[in-house]
């Protein structure tokens, strides 16, 4: 691979693969107004079904494709039935979170059944290449292009000329009206999920054959790429999704040619942010953004929070402080210390996503900033942790608010996508800025926690330190919310138009929420850095962001005590009951699904 033609062919092939994903996402967004975060999991599922068929049944390619197509269509129907249909009429965020829960479950099931090891997908395609100019085109390239074109053509015929296609388009335009006219909307949704998932599964199979490599961790990136392609083309726009995918594929391919493979995703996410900011309706969307009517309490489940009396909260805190006096079991103390670190993150996220309504999917990025800031201050400047940790908190507050600032004008789903991308960008910048961060090698030898020159190694001391920070941050946050900031941020969450009409400057208050929340998350990341003594760009990954969101939902969005309860429940309990690591994500997924279905306001209630 060296010539311009090779890079172009590669870009178009990858673009075709993205298109198969993005078209499905667009169809689903059209009828269900939902960004399906489980779509990448279907893609992985398709890849593994194909691998299993070829490996165990020795099926020829057309049969393999048929098996993948049918199996993934079935999975799509299941996703619609579990993740979407029971949640009609619930908060708008509910189906989105349900698909995240489903993706946890599906990815983990794939991993448990097929093992986490990467696999090679054998291909029975002839190994010839056609020379074109100074490049070449292989059989695989032609196959992928053919599948892409054929799918697009079939989809066009289906949407344009079949009765079900009419029903799909009618539902996409106006769900209620279609229903009134006798369209079975549930059946339409089911069909759309089946078609979208079948195409997504094929995409996974083709990718497996193209790179001769599949692994269960590829879901998340696939979802992201599909979403990026969709945003470029205009969310919910099928032809737009295809053009967006090809553009994304070409951009990535040329980007790699210029700068190297570690920059591939950086291009994708920078492109995403650029489109969200300057062309949020994509290439094919109209210019005017439609101001959506505020559905009363639409993004957060209304509830009356459970308020514990002060003495009960004080008693809980005292019991937590007294625990190390009763036991010195290192395992228990370390586990709870991890829970306290998670609680700092959850406190931060519950403020930003819960109170201010800015659903952030990239919160681990704040941990990374805090961790690297403190580590670099300690390593390069010799700052003691007692100074470098609060400094890291402040740096995270400032940098975090600054990075998200351009996304403040976005709302709902879009702010979630933007924060997700910003989180990924932070990780990719860390990977590529080797001079500062050590790149993929990471930072080693980060000094341990210390106080006045005394290193802190004892489990008890670390436990107390982290607990004290959690309690202080929680008390500070409660006081913050008890001031005019509490009602102001919640007003921003409830209805931006009404808030502005009463003089609230949105940027100012969103910025302050991110700054306040960023501090706590930065401190958490900084302490973790000193405890682990090692960091790299994957220490705080996007899965952690989604886990933090699960904690926040479990405790009750915006609920300060709830965030701590959620962190202890999800980080502490599985560890204490020694649940094997591979089942943990499965549990998170199931917890998320059950919560959204049966107790969307969380354990202690949304505030």
């Amino acid at each position, binding site marked *: 691979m060296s010539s311009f033609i090779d890079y172009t062919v590669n870009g178009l092939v990858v673009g075709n693969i993205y298109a198969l994903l993005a078209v499905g996402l667009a169809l689903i967004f059209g009828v269900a107004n939902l960004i399906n975060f489980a779509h990448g999991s279907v893609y992985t599922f398709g890849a593994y079904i194909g691998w299993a068929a070829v490996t165990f049944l020795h099926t020829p390619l057309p049969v393999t494709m048929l098996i993948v197509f049918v199996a993934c269509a079935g999975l799509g129907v299941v996703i619609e039935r579990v993740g979407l249909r029971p949640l009609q009429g619930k908060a708008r965020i509910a189906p989105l979170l349900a698909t995240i829960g489903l993706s946890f479950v599906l990815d983990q099931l794939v991993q448990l059944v097929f093992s986490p090891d990467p696999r090679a997908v054998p291909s029975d395609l002839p190994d010839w290449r056609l020379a074109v100019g100074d490049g070449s085109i292989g059989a695989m390239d032609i196959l992928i292009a053919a599948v892409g074109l054929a799918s697009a053509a079939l989809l066009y015929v289906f949407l344009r000329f079949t009765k079900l296609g009419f029903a799909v388009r009618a539902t996409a335009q106006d769900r209620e009206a279609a229903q009134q006219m006798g369209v079975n909307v549930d059946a339409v949704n089911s069909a759309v999920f089946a078609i979208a998932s079948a195409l997504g599964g094929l995409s996974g199979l083709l990718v497996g054959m193209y790179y001769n490599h599949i692994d269960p961790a590829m879901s998340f990136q696939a979802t992201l790429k599909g979403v990026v392609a969709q945003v470029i083309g205009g969310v919910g726009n099928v032809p737009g999704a295809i053009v967006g995918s090809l553009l994304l594929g070409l951009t990535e391919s040329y980007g790699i040619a210029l700068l190297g493979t570690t920059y591939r995703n950086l291009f994708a996410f920078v492109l995403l942010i650029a489109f969200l900011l300057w062309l949020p309706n994509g290439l094919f969307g109209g210019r005017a953004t439609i101001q959506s*009517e*505020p559905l*009363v*309490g639409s993004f*957060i489940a*209304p509830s*009356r929070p459970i308020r514990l009396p002060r003495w009960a909260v004080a008693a809980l805190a005292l019991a937590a402080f007294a625990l190390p006096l009763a036991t010195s079991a290192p395992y228990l103390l370390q586990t709870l210390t991890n829970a306290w670190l998670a609680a700092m993150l959850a406190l931060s996220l519950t403020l930003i996503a819960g109170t201010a309504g800015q659903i952030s999917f990239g919160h681990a990025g704040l941990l990374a900033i805090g961790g690297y800031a403190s580590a670099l201050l300690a390593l390069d400047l010799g700052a003691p942790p007692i100074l470098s940790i609060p400094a890291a908190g402040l740096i995270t507050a400032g940098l975090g608010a600054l990075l998200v600032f351009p996304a403040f004008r976005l709302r709902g789903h879009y702010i979630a996508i933007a924060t997700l991308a910003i989180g990924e960008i932070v990780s990719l910048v860390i990977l590529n800025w080797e001079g500062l961060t050590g790149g993929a090698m990471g930072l080693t030898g980060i000094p341990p926690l210390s106080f006045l020159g005394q290193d802190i190694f004892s489990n008890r001391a670390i436990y107390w330190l982290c607990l004290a920070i959690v309690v202080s941050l929680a008390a*500070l946050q409660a*006081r*913050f919310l008890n*001031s*005019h*900031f*509490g*009602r*102001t941020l*919640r*007003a921003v*969450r*409830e*209805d931006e*138009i*009404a*808030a*502005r*009409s*009463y*003089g*609230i*400057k*949105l940027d*100012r208050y969103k*910025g*302050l929420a991110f*700054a*306040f929340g960023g501090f706590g998350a930065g401190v958490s990341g900084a302490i973790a850095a000193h405890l682990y003594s090692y960091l790299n760009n994957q220490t705080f990954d996007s899965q952690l962001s989604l886990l933090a969101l699960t904690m926040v939902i479990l405790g009750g969005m915006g609920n300060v005590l709830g965030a701590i309860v959620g962190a202890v429940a999800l980080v502490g309990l599985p560890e204490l009951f020694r649940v094997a690591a591979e089942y943990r994500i499965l549990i998170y997924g199931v917890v998320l699904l059950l919560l959204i279905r049966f107790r969307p306001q969380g354990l202690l209630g*949304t505030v």
Partner: protein
Amino acid sequence: MAPLLDIRGLTRRFGGVVAVKALDLTVGEGEFVSLIGPNGAGKTTTFNMISGLERLDGGEVRFAGRSIQGLTPEAIAALGLARTFQHGRVFANLSVEDNVLLGAHTRLRAVKPRLPVIGPLAELVLALVRPPAVKKEEQALKAEAREILNLFGERLTPRLDHPAYSLSYANRRRVEIARALALRPRLLLLDEPTAGMNPTETAEMQALIATLKGRGVTILLIEHKLDLVMQLSDRVYVLDDGVKIAEGPPEKVRNDPAVIEAYLGHREIGRAASSVEVVAS
């Protein structure tokens, strides 16, 4: 003296439709002015343009002696303009009290020092530290919020800490007006405050609006219930298809043939008749 609100040639187009066409409208200090007209006449669009939510395609809006077009809604609110919304936009998950306190946001002084650049940080620190001045301000606002809610008799005062989503429809509308009053507006825009209310509730709302008028609040009202409009207004503007078809004191407007036609829909009857003819021929 220039009127408090002075609108000249206000125009707004949506695609090919002219929603509001070259509208002139003034509201003097202390005056009670109503804006009436059939559905789709452009009344709410006019409100949206005055309050900064909708851009102008032409014309000028002057408020309190300065031009406010191009200003953001938050800046216009800070100049002393409060509005309610046609379909009601209370903050559903906020308590009744918090909804009203939020209306006073533009009046926060002690906790929001007017400092360049470090203003937001100062606000954060003051809210956390809470010096006496900040506490006093919050207490005073809370007392004032109770007073405002007392205007509605026993409707809202027993429900201070109830979230707004749990209130009846009429009570949500009342909360919205209470929130607007907390801004201490120089001009209050009311968009169909009695929409969807039964006769008793409407009479109660009319009494309240009369009280506000008695207290000298300057009001621009959109309303379909003509009895209320005719009894309270100093002047009435009538809009139809985005065009002003009449203006003046209530008794003059009431007898204007153009207004009667717009309301009784002579043209509609005519149109229906002509389409019958087409079918018949």
